[in-house]
């Protein structure tokens, strides 16, 4: 796998949903190489920052050489990124890590919390392309913050909002298990991305439905120093003891590989 480190031009900037920004970069090699669930380390030149920022590719289009990133502003780096516009350059390093394994059988249930939804346009597209039945469960504080269902063509999209402004009132987990039996054991596969507490909730819910942990894939979120395996800063506790490196062994891993009791969350909760 070849990792590019190169400046990429911003060819489009938009606001896909309230509180989020979407940057489309033109970089054919990356657009061609990236798998759904992989991430890039984006360089930011904000005051007093030094490290790159990890962002999942939301989607990519090898034909046009474009790759999309969807994010919200939480600090100096994302604020700098959100101020990029058409014609600006963003230096990217990637694609990095492992994406989701999409070639399984049976129906897929995707669970997104918060900006974890950013990874799913590409994931859903790939699952649908493989002829798999896809249910997309998305939660947000309020209707305006939901990613439009049009971003998940071919999937059965179900939504929940904390304020009940649309869909179920409550967390995304109130949508699980979805009707029609998917989620009742048997062959269903779960793909979850969001804050660690939400990942844990998905796992507990799945357990209750007797979905084996090996049928749950999660996208981990840990701090990233290098993104390539040299700093050892992205450790996540393994069920078999010790730690895996989120940037190399992840960010997408099967839930049974993680020791969830030792898993921490620096950024939420």
């Amino acid at each position: 796998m070849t990792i590019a480190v190169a400046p990429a031009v911003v060819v489009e900037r938009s606001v896909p949903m309230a509180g989020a920004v979407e940057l489309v970069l033109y970089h054919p090699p990356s657009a061609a190489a990236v798998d759904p669930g992989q991430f890039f380390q984006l360089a930011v030149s904000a005051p007093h920052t030094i490290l790159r920022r990890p962002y999942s590719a939301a989607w990519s289009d090898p034909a046009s050489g474009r790759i999309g990133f969807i994010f919200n502003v939480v600090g100096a780096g994302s604020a700098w990124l959100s101020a990029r516009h058409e014609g600006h350059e963003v230096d990217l390093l990637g694609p990095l890590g492992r994406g989701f394994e999409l070639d399984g059988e049976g129906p897929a249930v995707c669970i997104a919390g918060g900006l974890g939804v950013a990874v799913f346009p590409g994931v859903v597209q790939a699952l649908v392309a493989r002829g798999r039945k896809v249910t997309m469960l998305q939660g947000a504080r309020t209707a305006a913050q939901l990613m439009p269902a049009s971003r998940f063509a071919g999937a059965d999209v179900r939504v929940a909002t904390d304020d009940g402004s649309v869909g179920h009132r409550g967390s995304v987990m109130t949508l699980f298990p979805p009707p029609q039996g998917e989620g009742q054991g048997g062959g269903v596969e779960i793909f979850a991305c969001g804050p660690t507490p939400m990942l844990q909730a998905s796992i507990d819910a799945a357990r209750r439905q007797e979905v084996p942990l090996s049928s749950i894939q999660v996208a981990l979120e840990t701090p990233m120093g290098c993104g390539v395996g040299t700093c050892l800063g992205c450790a996540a506790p393994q069920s078999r003891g010790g730690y895996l490196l989120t940037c190399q062994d992840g960010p997408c891993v099967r839930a049974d590989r993680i020791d969830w009791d030792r898993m921490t969350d620096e950024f939420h909760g």
Partner: protein
Amino acid sequence: MAKPLDLRVDLGRGLRLRSPVLVASGTFGYGFDAPQVDRAVLGAIVTKGTTLRPRDGNAPNRIAETPSGMLNAIGLQNPGVDHVARVYAPLWSSWDVPVIVNVAGDSVDEYVAVVRRLDGVPGIAGLELNISCPNVANGLQFGVAPDLAAELTSAVRAVTRLPLIVKLTPNVTDIVAVARAVEDAGADALSAINTFVGMAIDVRRRQPMLSRGSGGLSGPAIKPLALHAVWQVASAVRIPVVGIGGITTAGDALEFLLAGAAAVQLGTVNYVRPEAAREVHDGIAAYLEEHGFADPGALPIRSGSVLTHA
């Protein structure tokens, strides 16, 4: 027309490097990752700190960004010296860039055992002794006490013919005293400096950012402190000093060479700008050309002892 440039540096005991630009321990793994760095410009690769037995390292959170710097408390996660000698060294032996193994331990005996295992193994060009580790015997870091540091250095020196670089910690009142003690104990060269102990607190969660509470500060933030340490040490010892700390540009590297360093190591910058090594290498060459110096050895501005400010 300037003389042909010679960027080679000699760190003693036959450790001759083609370039004064090295990559620092813990920022380049064991040389198998970070493919995007151009190795042709590297004088050597210094490996992650290696201990006698494999170590899992510390629980997360292990790193945190700070103003122009970062804190880390990795906890020496490494596969252990046996794996390094059996699996990695043979691969290194075919590389065109020398590999220096960074050695760590909890006791003099552990350091000695690690070095014994590495001595004479093909593919290993030299050793860098990380004396910033706490000594289980007394909890104190080896690197903070001249006598402890000297004892460790001579114990290791006694069991290897490999070039031996001792890496100094800056967390001391008088780094010069440690440097001199280590020189007298048989170090072939010194590298300075390791990280500064620091901490960050998550105000929202009301607990330290790092699981260990404190960690080591690296990056541009520490450059002025590292440079002062190198300036003091280089003017006090006769063996070569490798400058480390916050170097991100050729200008930064030149500050260290002017301060008396024979070579430099790039650390944190490798995470961010893989092209840095190439830029620093070429920038040093361009500066030598421009000022008509034949080699980096001509750069140091003689310091004498620097007064501390008031």
